[in-house]
């Protein structure tokens, strides 16, 4: 209001914004998605606590599907190449993304990872891309990465109440994988309860019970991936 008198007070204005806080992340995620669609690659974002069995499930998956499909993995961790090394031993292409402290992956890091993967692929296209998020059941659920399918994992030693305690991970996922089912006799884990809790958050969630050690449920998991791949463009 005061441009002329010299009191130094400028004009005040209100700018309407009405914009999603995570817009920047979402826009890069959409770019990632368009890129993945153009190469015919289905991307799967795995979310679960540290030690929930994400990497081991990927090892079993690559053993089953590695001959039929070209599989790539982006491994999210705070530090180390340990997980990427494990995946490479199974014959898949892997890039380790170290966040250097952040507890989740963001779409810009995936963008960089996709470039790095392509550098290692010499023009070949991936059929399936797994994104193993940083071990954490909270923060990764906020950040879209451009994935086609989001999967939340809980191991039986973590307890059946996890869907209730970490609702966002379950609300935003379409598949719930219970892992380490071979350990159920040593725990109080109740599959029925865990499934009910998960469905109370997200009624359309599909649940699969697996054991990477015995191989139980891995067929079902692999079938689901093949079906999901057929559904994507």
């Amino acid at each position, binding site marked *: 209001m005061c441009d002329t008198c010299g009191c130094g*007070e*400028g*004009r*005040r*204005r*209100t*700018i*309407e*914004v*009405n*914009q*999603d*806080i*995570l*817009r*920047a*992340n979402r826009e890069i995620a959409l770019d990632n998605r368009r890129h993945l669609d153009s190469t015919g690659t289905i991307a799967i974002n795995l979310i679960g606590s540290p030690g929930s069995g994400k990497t081991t499930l990927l090892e079993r998956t690559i053993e089953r599907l590695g001959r039929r499909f070209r599989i790539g993995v982006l491994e999210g961790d705070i530090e180390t190449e340990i997980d990427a090394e494990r995946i490479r031993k199974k014959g898949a292409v892997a890039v380790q993304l170290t966040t250097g402290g*952040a*507890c*989740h992956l*963001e779409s810009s890091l995936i963008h960089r990872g996709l470039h790095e993967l392509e550098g290692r692929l010499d023009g070949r296209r991936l059929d399936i891309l797994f994104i193993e998020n940083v071990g954490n059941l*909270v*923060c990764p*659920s*906020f*950040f879209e990465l451009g994935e086609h399918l989001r999967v939340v994992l809980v191991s039986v030693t973590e307890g059946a109440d996890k869907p*209730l305690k970490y*609702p*966002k991970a379950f*609300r935003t996922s379409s598949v719930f994988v219970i892992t380490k089912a071979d350990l159920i006799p040593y725990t109080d884990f109740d599959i029925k309860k865990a499934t009910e809790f998960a469905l*109370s*958050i997200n009624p359309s969630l599909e649940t699969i019970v697996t054991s990477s050690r015995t191989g139980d449920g891995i067929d079902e998991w692999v079938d689901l991936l093949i079906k999901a791949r057929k559904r994507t463009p």
Partner: protein
Amino acid sequence: MHELSIATGIVDEIVRIAEENRAKRVLAANLRIGRGAGIVIDSLRFALEVVKTAHPVLTSTEMRIDEVPLIYRCNDCGREFEADDLYLPRCPMCGSYNLRLVSGEEMDIKDIEIEV
């Protein structure tokens, strides 16, 4: 602690909008955060105060957070009601589970007040 990343995103957006509008400084920013958005408001407030110090245009910005209640509309009887949490809510009038979320998942920058 996703609140720090979220605060960084908010501050970057506010700075971008302020620059676009040639603001001398930003007086206030009004944010809308839903009860069911999964954001700890106190953590977000703390993170915003830390992150904004990196930008001179934000030194005197008041960060206002409007908490949006979790409201459902019943698809069977049409009534609207407020819920405490996201877990399998039922319509208190007719008992139906067939509900639509009306509000409560917002994470928006509503507007910013600037001095030009």
